[in-house]
């Protein structure tokens, strides 16, 4: 540990000692300030040696505080964790300072393929291709390269690779979990029946 981080306070005791709520929120804010991805409440609780309940409460207080003072940042639950983001309304000002290079947006083809994978996961490439009516090899490669999907094992029947969406996908969509995706049911015909059809029936 470096010498410049000497603190006058005593370190938190191992057992979850009652801690000043404001101080806990501040410690969490400090951690959330340095992370590059959403962090689970569990990981935060371990770092500050408090219960997950206490951490969840402190995060609520932090979020409420941001909202009440109309801060430039807010706390969002995304991809199964929490992370601080700038508020969308300040995007123009913020983007002038970001040196992220060109932000490439997903194409229509990529979005549609991603949608099928998100709703049918785990799913094979050929299944996605059958639903979309076009070959999806190139698009799947791109989605893999961007870390939005991963291959998770193979289909026991066809031997084809099975694909899932990743946490990064959730984060990019601002979703906390796949359950937050709206139901397709009202839009779909009997989807189970469709599964039974082999692509060559067409």
């Amino acid at each position, binding site marked *: 540990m*470096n010498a*410049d*981080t000497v603190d006058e306070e005593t370190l938190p005791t191992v057992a979850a000692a009652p801690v000043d709520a404001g101080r806990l929120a501040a410690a969490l804010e400090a951690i959330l300030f*340095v992370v*590059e*991805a959403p962090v689970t409440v569990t990981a935060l609780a371990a770092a500050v040696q408090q219960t997950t309940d206490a951490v969840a409460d402190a995060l609520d207080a932090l979020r409420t505080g941001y909202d009440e003072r109309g801060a430039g940042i807010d706390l*969002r639950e995304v991809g199964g964790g929490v992370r*601080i*983001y*700038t*508020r*969308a309304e300040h*995007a123009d000002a*913020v*983007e002038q300072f970001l040196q*992220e290079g060109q*932000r490439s947006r*997903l194409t*229509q*083809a990529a*979005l*549609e393929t*991603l*949608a*099928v994978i998100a*709703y049918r996961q785990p799913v094979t490439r*050929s299944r996605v*291709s*059958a*639903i*979309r*009516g*076009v*070959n999806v090899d*190139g*698009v799947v*490669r*791109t989605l893999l*390269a961007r870390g939005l999907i991963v291959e998770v094992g193979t289909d026991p029947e066809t031997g084809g690779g099975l694909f899932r969406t990743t946490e990064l996908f959730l*984060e990019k*969509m*601002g*979703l906390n979990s796949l*359950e*937050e*995706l*709206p139901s*397709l049911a*009202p*839009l*779909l*015909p*009997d989807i189970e*029946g*469709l599964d039974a*059809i082999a*692509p*060559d*029936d*067409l």
Partner: protein
Amino acid sequence: MTDALDAAAIDDLMAESGDSSTDGSFRVRLDNFEGPFDLLLNLISRRQLDVTEVALSQVTDEFISYLAALDEWDLGKATEFLVVAATLLDLKAARLLPAAEVEDEEDLALLEARDLLFARLLQYRAYKLAAAYLGELERTQSKRHGRAVELEPRFAELLPEVLLDISPQQFAALAAQAMVPRPVPVVKTDHLYAPQVSLQEQLAIVRSRLRRSGAATFRALAGDCTLTIEVVARFLGLLELYRDGLVAFDQAAPLAELRVRWTGPDADQDADADNSSNIDEEYA
């Protein structure tokens, strides 16, 4: 955000997402379309009509004038269109057929197949709408920026030691995989042409039957097909023969029985069989 979207809201989204199907000519739509389902959906949604009301002849006219305006005859696009037109015709025929008159088992099977096609189309549309929703989510989220900044040095030193549990061979495989050129995306329809159905074979079947009998209805020519794809292949085969001036078509009225006559040489001049040897590739 977690509320289920109702179909109307999604339709709005889809309209906003700049779906080109709502305006423009054939050219516009063809430049954007991705495959048969896409084109079919666009054709139907553009007319905002039930399938039964789509004027297929009108769509065909539009398409032919589009093709005529092209500098080069584009076999790929023409093939796509034929598949779509055949599907559309199938759907339309199925919708027009009064349910009471379906007694023939063959008709019933055909009807079922067509309903499945329609269901597939609806499924395709559902995912397209879901994609529009995801696009909206992505747009919103991309305006929120997380902090992605190098750790202050005092913190960077504290990161646990990194683990590289990968062998040099696996590492090389990873590099190769990352560096292989990504294939240029192309519109493929091989999933529609079941690989076991060879256009050339189907063409040979109709050719030999027509040559033998001189004339036949399309229904008879396709009577023994078990898969829709075989029917499509035979139809494409006939078009191929027509292009070579070997057959002629007679049809009294739209949707009436289609009769095909052999107009080529009678004798066994099989030399021309070679001409079609690459036909599968052409259409694949």
